[in-house]
């Protein structure tokens, strides 16, 4: 199984990390001199991955603090090995699954995806992971199940941010079953071929590239199949601002800011805003929402 989704780019297109960093310095130097050097074809496609440094130092993971650099400073204390995921609800084989048993049964792929945060910034991340659909097939989804709920681990002793009710912990997210089964939807276990850094949601996190980043539940400890739309953390905190679907949509503004454009992280002080694409550019998911009013189901 797996490999149902094909990137138009292969790993050969990924700029080697060292070269990438060098190139960035060159570009920064050139920009400072006012030279209009054009980017690579990858840049034109919007798919030049951010550096490992950017991806691992600029994070929203409120369990470790609300600042962008809090997770990289505080997440080191999270114990990620051993790790079990409780899979329950409407499944044929419920139970506590050890990650060390689970991962070898999956096909790990590299997927270079755009990541669009609800805060109107974006990155490109080379994830390593497997399709959620494969895990769902492994545990067997019972007929009648319509949604998948995800829960992030809650360990106040290791997660200083949870000692204060910024959100109603534990962090909860959810997808409709067809969204969860879409070949774009990943459970990611790494970045740049390295094990998932703690600040990015180690050891395993959700990746749903056509949705805003807060949908990507991190450090998943529980997956529940259900027939009812599950409560989700940001929606519980502020339903007016964060919908259940939260598909990237340039036409539906966040009440506090426009979603029409985005700032590319890592592009420097004078980076121009770029237009945000419907479904973050992943048009292949449009059929999932046929006939739905996406202004209402934002």
């Amino acid at each position, binding site marked *: 199984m797996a490999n149902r989704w094909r990137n138009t780019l292969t790993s050969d297109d990924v700029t080697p990390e060292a070269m990438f960093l060098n190139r960035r310095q060159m570009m*920064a130097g050139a920009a400072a001199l006012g030279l209009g050097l054009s980017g690579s074809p990858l840049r034109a496609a919007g798919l030049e991955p951010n550096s490992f440094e950017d991806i691992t130092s600029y994070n929203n993971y409120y369990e470790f603090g609300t600042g*962008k650099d809090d997770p990289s400073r505080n997440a080191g204390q999270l114990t990620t090995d051993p790790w079990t995921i409780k899979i329950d609800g409407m499944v044929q084989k419920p139970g506590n699954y050890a990650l060390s048993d689970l991962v070898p049964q999956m096909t790990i792929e590299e997927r270079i995806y755009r990541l669009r945060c609800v805060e109107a*910034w974006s990155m490109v991340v080379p994830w390593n992971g497997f399709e959620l659909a494969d895990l769902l097939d492994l545990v067997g989804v019972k007929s009648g199940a319509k949604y998948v709920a995800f829960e992030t681990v809650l360990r106040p002793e290791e997660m200083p941010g949870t000692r204060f009710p*910024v*959100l109603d912990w534990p962090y909860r997210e959810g997808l409709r079953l067809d969204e969860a089964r879409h070949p774009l939807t990943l459970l990611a276990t790494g970045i740049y071929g390295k094990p998932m850094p703690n600040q990015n949601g180690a050891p395993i996190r959700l990746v749903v590239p056509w949705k805003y980043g807060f949908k990507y539940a991190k450090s998943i400890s529980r997956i529940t199949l259900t027939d009812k739309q599950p409560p989700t953390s940001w929606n519980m905190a502020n339903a007016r601002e964060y919908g259940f679907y939260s598909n990237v949509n340039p036409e539906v503004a966040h009440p*506090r800011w426009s979603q029409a*454009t985005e700032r590319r992280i890592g592009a420097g002080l004078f980076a121009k805003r770029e237009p945000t694409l419907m479904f973050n550019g992943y048009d292949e998911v449009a059929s999932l929402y046929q006939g739905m009013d996406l202004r209402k189901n934002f």
Partner: protein
Amino acid sequence: MIDLVNRSVRAIPNWVIYVAGAVPVIWLYVRGFQNALGPDPVDVIERNLGLWALWLLIAGLCVTPLQRTTPLRLIKLRRPIGVLAFFYVLVHFLTWLVLDVQIPSQIIADIIKRPYVTVGMVSLVLLLPLAVTSNNWSIRKLGGRWRKLHQLVYPAVALAGVHMVMQAKGFQLEPLVYLAVIALLIAMRWMPLSAFRQAFVKR
């Protein structure tokens, strides 16, 4: 001790305070140019300038209550603090305008449609006449009206605090603490403070 503080405050020339106060802004931008502010330099500049502006505005509100409750005489610092606060607010606003939002039509839409931007903008507009009249000539020219005009600082700082609360995602403590401090400092203008003062003097 307090006497020493009072005397040093009197001894510092104003231009030194202005230059020292401008250094963090210049430093922040130099670091930005050097690509040394991390993956999102615009956000770092915007946030820091906003936060420092709020600190200065709060510091400005502290001067009079301190004068009334303690022997500290910091009144000389009030103008430089206020003018610097406005400078920080202005650079914060220009950074948002030029480096963050960039698109003119979106800037106008944001100011009108996004309440937290509207609130911040109103605060800036209220501070503008205060910055412009922060000089001896204006005080002479306006006479009694100067004092009235400068009471605009209360709504301006209150709105700056509200602006910070409104931009936070989720339930966050820090902005609420600032707002509470601002509320207290403003309320102190109408509180009988002689009790505080006597307590201090006795000790």
